[in-house]
């Protein structure tokens, strides 16, 4: 299993303002699959994906990602774990506005300690594969939403991570760009030794999933392995 979560809870605040975001989540994500987390706003999707990505500590439970127990892992190794194993595609892209497309895509390699020239060269290759070979030196503001998301995908995969975490990757895109984005994610990131988690509200892209986990009120209420059946039910 790429991801194995058992009895995961997460609460924020204390006393009267205590908010229970996750109430005992169990989730398995096999290698080679693209799993979508779906559900209404506030159901705990983002909290769960943050815990799986190692950016948030669960209150209770067991989270094993790519064979590593994230709950037992200390802060330093967890940072290293994210750096080496996790790629991120964010809802609002989170590109650095003052870096060009290729420089943005090179950031994970720079964080990993690569030299600038080598990192930029690798990032240029990644962008080329995503069809942005002619936009390397453009700033994010000079790119369309779809192109920015492709830069974000290039940034997420440039260091060859084994787990790709995508948070609402198509929510800011039109149908066509949303479809292209999901094709890219599914085509590039889903490999036998990798896994992809996509948090989404966008029913148009359910067909790209191998498995869809529906969440409600901090729990996973169903896991559907047939996206078409899931889509017809929602």
């Amino acid at each position, binding site marked *: 299993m790429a991801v194995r979560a058992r009895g995961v809870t997460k609460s924020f605040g204390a006393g009267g303002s205590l908010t229970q975001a996750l109430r005992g989540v169990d989730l398995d994500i096999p290698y080679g699959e693209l799993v979508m987390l779906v559900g209404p706003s506030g159901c705990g999707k*983002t909290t769960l*994906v*943050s815990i799986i*990505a190692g*950016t*948030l500590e669960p209150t209770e439970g067991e989270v094993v990602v790519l064979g590593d127990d994230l709950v037992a892992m200390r802060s*330093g190794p967890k*940072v*290293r774990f*994210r*750096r*080496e194993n*996790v790629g*991120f595609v*964010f*809802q*609002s892209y*989170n590109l*650095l*506005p*003052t*870096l060009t497309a290729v*420089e943005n895509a090179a*950031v*994970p390699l*720079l*964080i*990993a300690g690569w030299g*600038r020239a080598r990192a930029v060269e690798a990032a240029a290759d990644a962008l080329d594969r995503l069809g942005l070979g002619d936009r390397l030196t453009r700033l994010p503001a000079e790119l369309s939403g779809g192109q920015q998301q492709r830069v974000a995908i290039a*940034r997420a995969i440039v260091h060859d991570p084994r787990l790709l975490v995508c*948070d*609402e990757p198509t929510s800011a895109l039109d149908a066509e760009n949303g479809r292209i984005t999901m094709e890219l994610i599914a085509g590039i990131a889903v490999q036998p030794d990798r896994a992809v988690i996509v948090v989404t509200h966008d029913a148009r892209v359910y067909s790209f999933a191998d498995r869809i986990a529906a969440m409600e009120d901090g729990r996973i209420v169903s896991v559907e392995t047939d996206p078409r059946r899931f889509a017809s039910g929602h």
Partner: protein
Amino acid sequence: MLWVAWKMLIGNRVKYLGIVFGVVFAALLIAQQSSIFCGLMALTISQIRDVEGPEIWVMDRNVQFVDDVKPLADTELFRVKGVPGVDWAVSFYKGIARARLQEGSYEQVILLGLDDATLVGAPGGVFMGSIADLRRPDAVIMDEAGYRRIWPDEPYRLGRVFEMNDRRAVVVGLTRASRTFQSFPIVYTRYSQAVRYAPPERKVLSFVLANAVPGTPPEEVCRRIEAQTGLQALTRRQFIWKTIRYYLAKTGIPVNFGITVFLGFLVGTAIAGQTFYLFTVENIRQFGALKAMGASNWTILAMVLSQAVQVGVIGYGIGVGLAALFGELLTGGRSRLSFFMPWEVLAITAVAVAVIVLLASLLSIRRVLVVDPAIVFRG
């Protein structure tokens, strides 16, 4: 990643210029005011520095600074000459005289009387006439700034006559002397002549200028002179610092300049700190994204500090450059501005700027270190 930090910084032009402006403002004010302060301090010791040759100044025990003249008996010269280790010693007169000009007006002047035989203490920058002309009757050499003050807009001309204490003085030379704190004209003459120009007093000897026998440390000779004569004997350097310390301790000059420098420091810190913090807050999601992608707190810390250092270096360079330009432009010609920028001013300004950028970045550092990488998942 430092390169990424640099691009993040310069990419936001308005904030970047705002931070640099804060540092420039502080560096300019600190360097400029400190240099003017040093210039004023240099004025207080200019007459010691202009007397080249003698390494030892001997004076009354109660003298506190160079203008605090307490006359000695002429016989003190011979007592100093008799101290072992003294190679030679000469009389030196320093006082204020009132010059009566031919048109009837009066002007206060600093009167310096040089040893008749050796003319030790004579000015080095004579550009009209010569030092030797001081041996002529009633001869005086005047400093250039003093000449312009007494006879403004008139061409330089030797042979001009004025009176001091009803005695005739003839200008036989002009020299470029350092400006003094009082900014009075400086008049050089022979010692014997100077005591006639000065108001009659029982004691007239201001200082004894001396040199140590080669191979004997001047400090040691000073100790011997003090022990044997009861007078105060200081090396040239000691006398310079005694004078500076007097002005630092007994006048309001350091406080006045200190307040301005401190205000520059405060305002610079406030501008740079606030703008830098706003810049960081504006980029907090980007920092969060970097942390999510695996940038450690050390990396983030290095990024913020490198941004601070970069604006510090640039702001410092521009600030001290502007201060130096200010000094260069406003101290030439007939300007009365005192401006002296020794390396110590540059070093102090550098330390102040380092503190400013450190303070400015502290809040930002705290902000980025505590930012939760999960922030990037919140829409």
